[in-house]
C-alpha cells in the first residue's frame, strides 16, 4: 500500500512539474513583451521594469528561477497590481471559489443521487419522465444561459414580492451562495442523476431485492436499505472526476454572479495580460486538480484492493 501511495504521489509531482513547465513556455511564446509603450513610458523605465521582474535574463535562467521560486511556493508579484503578490491574490480569492465549489458539489451529489434513485423507483411514471426531461434540459443548456435565466428569475420574484428574497449577484452572506452553487452544480447533478437511475434500475433487478421482498420488508425499507445503498457505490466513485469539472467550470458562474473568486481574477488577468497572475493561477489550479486526483486514486486503492494491484502493475 505504501508503495502504491508513494508511486501515486511521485507521479502527481511530476505532473505538476509538467504543468508548470508547459505554462512557463506557453507564456514565453507570447509575442512581444508585457511592457509595451502604454505601461513603460521611457526606455529607462522599461529596462528597470524588465530587471525588476527578471525578464532581462536568458530564458533558461528565468526558467530555473521560476521553478526555484515555485518550489518555495512563491508565485511572484502581479504585473498590473504592483503591490500584490500572486500568493496573496490566491490566498484571498481561492477560498471563495472553494466554498462555492464545495456547495455546488454537495447540492449536485445530494440532488443527483436522490433524484436518480426516485426516478428509478417510479420508473416510466410521471416523476421519472419529469426528472429525465429536467436532466436533458440541464445537460443541453449552457451554464451561462442557466445562470442568466436564474438571475432573471430572481429579479422577477424580488419585483413581484416587493422585497429582496435572494440577492441577484455579489458575495457575502449565505444567501449569496445558493443560486450560483445550484447553477454550477446543475450539469453534474444531471449527470449523476442519470448514472444513479441506471445503477438503481440494475440493482432493482437483483436477486437480493426479491429475497428482501419475500421476507416481507416494506417498499420503503427495501428502497432505503437495499436499493439506495447498493446503487450508490458506482455513483460515488464518479464523484472524483466531477470535482475537477466543478472547480474549473466555476469561473463563468463567478463572472456572471460577480463573485470575487479566483476564476474571475484569472479571466481578468488574461484580459490585462498579467503574466505572473496567469502563470501562478494556472499552476495552482493544475496542482490542486492533480492533488485531488491523487487523493481520489489513493482512497479508491484503500476501498478496492483490485485497483491497488492494477495500479502497481502499471
Amino acid at each position, binding site marked *: 500500500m505504501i508503495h502504491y501511495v508513494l508511486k501515486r504521489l511521485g507521479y502527481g509531482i511530476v505532473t505538476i512539474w509538467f*504543468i508548470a513547465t508547459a505554462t512557463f513556455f506557453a507564456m514565453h511564446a507570447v509575442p512581444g513583451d508585457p511592457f509595451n509603450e502604454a505601461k513603460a513610458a521611457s526606455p529607462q523605465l522599461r529596462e528597470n521594469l524588465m530587471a525588476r521582474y527578471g525578464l532581462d535574463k536568458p530564458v533558461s535562467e528565468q526558467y530555473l528561477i521560476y521553478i526555484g521560486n515555485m518550489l518555495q511556493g512563491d508565485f511572484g508579484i502581479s504585473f498590473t497590481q504592483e503591490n500584490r503578490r500572486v500568493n496573496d491574490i490566491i490566498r484571498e480569492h481561492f477560498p471563495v471559489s472553494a466554498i462555492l465549489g464545495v456547495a455546488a458539489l454537495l447540492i449536485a451529489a445530494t440532488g443527483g443521487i436522490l433524484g436518480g434513485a426516485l426516478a428509478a423507483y417510479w420508473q416510466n411514471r410521471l416523476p421519472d419522465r419529469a426528472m429525465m426531461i429536467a436532466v436533458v434540459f440541464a445537460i443541453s*443548456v449552457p451554464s451561462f444561459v442557466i445562470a442568466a435565466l436564474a438571475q432573471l428569475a430572481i429579479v422577477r420574484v424580488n419585483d413581484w414580492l416587493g422585497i429582496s428574497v435572494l440577492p441577484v449577484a455579489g458575495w457575502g452572506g449565505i444567501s449569496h451562495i445558493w443560486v450560483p452553487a445550484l447553477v454550477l452544480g446543475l450539469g453534474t447533478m444531471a449527470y449523476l442523476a442519470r448514472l444513479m437511475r*441506471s445503477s438503481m*434500475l440494475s440493482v432493482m433487478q437483483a436477486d437480493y431485492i426479491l429475497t428482501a421482498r419475500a421476507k416481507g420488508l416494506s417498499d420503503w425499507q427495501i428502497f432505503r436499505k437495499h436499493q439506495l445503498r447498493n446503487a450508490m457505490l458506482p455513483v460515488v466513485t464518479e464523484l472524483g472526476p466531477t470535482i475537477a469539472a466543478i472547480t474549473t467550470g466555476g469561473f463563468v458562474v463567478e463572472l456572471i454572479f460577480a463573485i470575487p473568486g479566483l476564476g474571475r481574477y484569472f479571466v481578468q488577468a488574461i*484580459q490585462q495580460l498579467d503574466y505572473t497572475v496567469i502563470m501562478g493561477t494556472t499552476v495552482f489550479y493544475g496542482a490542486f486538480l492533480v492533488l485531488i486526483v491523487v487523493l481520489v486514486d489513493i482512497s479508491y486503492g484503500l476501498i478496492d484492493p483490485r485497483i491497488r494491484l492494477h495500479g502497481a502493475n502499471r
Partner: protein
Amino acid sequence: MRFYPGDFDALPAAAPEQMEDLVAAPPLWRILAQDARAVAAVVVVVLLIATALIGPILWPQDPARQWLSQVSSGPVEAREVAVIDDSRNWRPSITAVDRLQAVQATTTSVKLVWPSVSTALRYRVYRDTQEHGSGLGVPLAETTQAFYDDRLQLREQNYRYTVVPVSAAGDLPQHFALQVKPSLTIGLFEASLLGLNTQEGRVELPAHPLGTDSLGRDMLSRVIHGARTSMLVGLTAPILFIGIGAFYGALAGLLGGWIDNTLMRIADFVVALPFLLFMILFRVAMGIESGESGLFPMVLAMVLLSWPGAARLVRGQVLQLRGSAFVLSARMAGASNIYLIRRHLMPNVLPLLLVSLSFAIPQAIFTEALLSFIGMGVVPPTPSWGSLCNEGIRSMLSHPHELIVPAVAISIAVLSFNVLGDALSDAMDVQLRRGNR
C-alpha cells in the same frame, strides 16, 4: 422515453425466439433506423449542418447590417414603408392649436405642436412608454417655442407625451398630454446608408422572422451565421482530435513495449492539464489579444488538449484485439497486417470512435460557446452562438428573445448530438449482445 445507455441493462434480453439471434448481428444503421429518437436526432443534425452550409443562401440577409428603424424588435413581416426626409429642421406651418397635437407621428420623428401659454417661459416635454404610468416618463427637452420634433429612438409602440409649461415661479399645473403610436417609417439618411432605392418615396423593409437585436441586426441571419462558426468549431475540432488520438493510440497499441509506455505517459500528462485554463492560455500564447477573433487558435487548442481520450480508447481496443482468439487464428492462417487492420481492427474500433465523436461534438460546441461568451473566442461582429448569448444577456431584462434565440440553438444542437450518441451506444449494446450469442 428511453434516453440512456444504462437503461438497456434493466430491460429483459431479446426474446430467444427471434430469428435474428441465430444469424449474425444486424448492421448498426439498421438498429438505428428502428430507433425513433435516433432517426429524429439524425434529422436534426442533418438540418443543422445544412443550415450552416446553405442557410446564408436561403436567407441572404447580411448579419452585420443594422436596421436602425427596427432595433430590438420582435418578429416582423416584410413591409413597405414611407421614406421621410429628416435632413432639415422642422418649423410647424400651423401654430394655432387648442391642444397638444401630433402633426406627424412616425418612427423617424414625432412632430408635436401645442397652444402657447402666455405665462410660460419655456416648456418641458416628457415621453413615457407606459400608457397609464404614474410618472411623466423621460424628460426629452426644454424648449421656448410651442412645438417639438422628437427623433429619439422611436419605435412602433404607444407613447404618452406630456408637455409641462414652466413659468418663472416653476411648473404650471396646466399640462398637455397626448397618446400616439408612431407608424413605421425610415429616414432618408438611414435608407441611403442601407443602399435602398428611395426614388419612389417608399421602400420595402425585409422580414425579421426572429426579430432583431439591440443594434437592429436580423436575428435569423445572425443565428444562421452563428451556426457556421459553431458547427465549424464543433465538427472540425472533434474530428481532428479523435482522428489524431486514434492514430496515436493505434500506434502505441501496435508497437507495444517501452514505446507504448512512453506514449501513454505523455497522454496522461496532457489529460492532467486544466482544460479551460489552457484553452485560454494557448490563445494568449498565440498572441491573440482580447478583441481579436481566435477561431483557429480555439480549434488548435482543443485538438492539442483533447486527443488523449480517443488514444486511450483505441489503444485499449488494439491490446484487447491483439490477444483475441480470432486475430490469432487469422494470423496463423497467414493474414497480413493490413488485412488484420482492415478486417478486424477497423470494424471493432470505428463504431466506438463514432460514439465518442458524437459525444465530443456537443462538448466542443459548448466550449466554443463558453469561450466566446467570456470574450475569449469569436469576437463581434462575427456571430457565434456563444457571442450572441453574450450580447443577448445585456438586454435580457427588456428583450429576452435576444438571449433565448441563440440559447435555444445551442441547446438543440447539443441535445441532438447527445441523443445520437446515446442511440449509437445503445445500438452497439444490442449488436454486441446478439453477436455474442
